């Protein structure tokens, strides 16, 4: 147990869990309608990794909170305003290009985040991160290769991935935001310094985009914010409605 405010720790771990859960749910929406069998497997596998990471984070968040809420209660019995995931991950799948751009933005970020968190002073957080980093690295590689293939592919695939980049880019600023909770936990050696990762993340992205013959997005652009404090786009409510309907309708349902 580290010496930090338990409320801060709960907020921090919950945010990580919520982003994993929401992205896992988004990816799983592809099941049964992916563009080809191999990608069907890939999308479902990535969804599974994200949900697995979310389970680890949410279980831990529930323990830190100490009010008897387990992973299921946190995932299934909270409303939009209590979710603290990044706005990026709740954006709809739209087409395969959107899904891959969103995945690359997140995975390439999460890879760096968990790389650092595996050395967190909080050993439980470090353990979860040490597993997650390997999975996110694999996702970044997979989605990055797709960005290259789509960008340097046909006229249509190029157009689609270019549009996805332009539309999703304004959601990337939030990845690197740090508020008081982050700062206090960084001070305690628990949290990662995401602000310091931005340049490296951007350089890796640029390398992919050059290879993909895609334009580099501008830094001088307004960025969305608010997901981490419960201010969400309209899309999250619809996602939660689908995800939560069974446990909401039958609160005591069991396998």
């Amino acid at each position, binding site marked *: 147990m580290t010496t930090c405010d338990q409320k801060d720790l709960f907020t921090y771990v919950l945010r990580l869990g919520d982003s994993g859960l929401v992205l*896992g749910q988004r990816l799983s929406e592809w099941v049964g309608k992916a563009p080809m069998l*191999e*990608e069907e*497997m*890939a999308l479902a*596998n*990535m969804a*599974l*990794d*994200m*949900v*697995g*990471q979310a*389970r*680890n984070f949410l279980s831990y968040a529930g323990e830190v909170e100490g009010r008897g809420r387990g992973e299921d209660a946190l995932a299934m019995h909270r409303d939009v305003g209590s979710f603290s995931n990044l706005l990026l991950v709740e954006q709809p799948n739209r087409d395969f290009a959107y899904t891959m751009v969103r995945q690359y933005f997140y995975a390439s970020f999460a890879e760096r985040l968990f790389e650092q968190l595996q050395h967190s002073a909080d*050993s439980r957080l*470090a*353990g*979860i991160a*040490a*597993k*997650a980093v*390997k*999975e996110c*690295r*694999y996702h*970044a*590689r*997979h989605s*990055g*290769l797709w960005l290259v293939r789509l960008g340097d592919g046909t006229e249509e695939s190029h157009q689609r991935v270019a549009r996805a980049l332009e539309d999703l880019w304004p959601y990337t600023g939030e990845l690197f935001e740090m508020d008081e909770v982050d700062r206090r936990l960084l001070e305690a050696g628990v949290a990662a310094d995401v602000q310091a990762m931005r340049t490296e993340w951007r350089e*890796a992205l640029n*390398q*992919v985009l050059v*290879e993909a013959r895609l334009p580099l997005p501008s830094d001088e652009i307004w960025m969305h914010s608010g997901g981490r404090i419960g201010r969400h786009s309209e899309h999250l409510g619809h996602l939660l409605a689908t995800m939560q309907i069974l446990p909401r309708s039958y609160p005591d349902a069991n396998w």
Partner: protein
Amino acid sequence: MIASSSDAQTSRVWQVLEAVPDPEIPVLSIVDLGIVREVAWQDDCLLVSITPTYSGCPAAEFIRNQVGSALADAGFETATVSEVLTPAWTTDWISEAGREKLRQYGIAPPEKATGRRGLFAPELTIHCPRCDSRRTECVSEFGSTPCKAHYRCLDCLEPFDYFKCL
């Protein structure tokens, strides 16, 4: 419990665990796979620690139940089977015997310690588990289970699974 009988009991436990197959690759035991992390005794209670291969491995709970019932069948009714995340599992923990079993089963065993491959790293050379050809290609980085990728041999033309390196 005196030390010598405890040692004998411990090796009995390992024998039981060696007979528990991985549900998705039944040719491997969970010991071959390297997911049994510890067999320990607390007073007279047996504690077995298992680590998942992937965060979201759907077989993890099933494996814990299998281990519990295998141990109960062998007379260790009060064994506690718990999950540990640290240190994170790596394919380097698959035993030599396990790697050979994989190959004979038609799954190419993982390369050692290459899981940190970056985006533009060169393609790996994976040997075909059937004809040992080096001329193989990756069909998909994700295969039939979370821990495998899908490959094809360009010589014998057989498709095969490659155990992803983690």
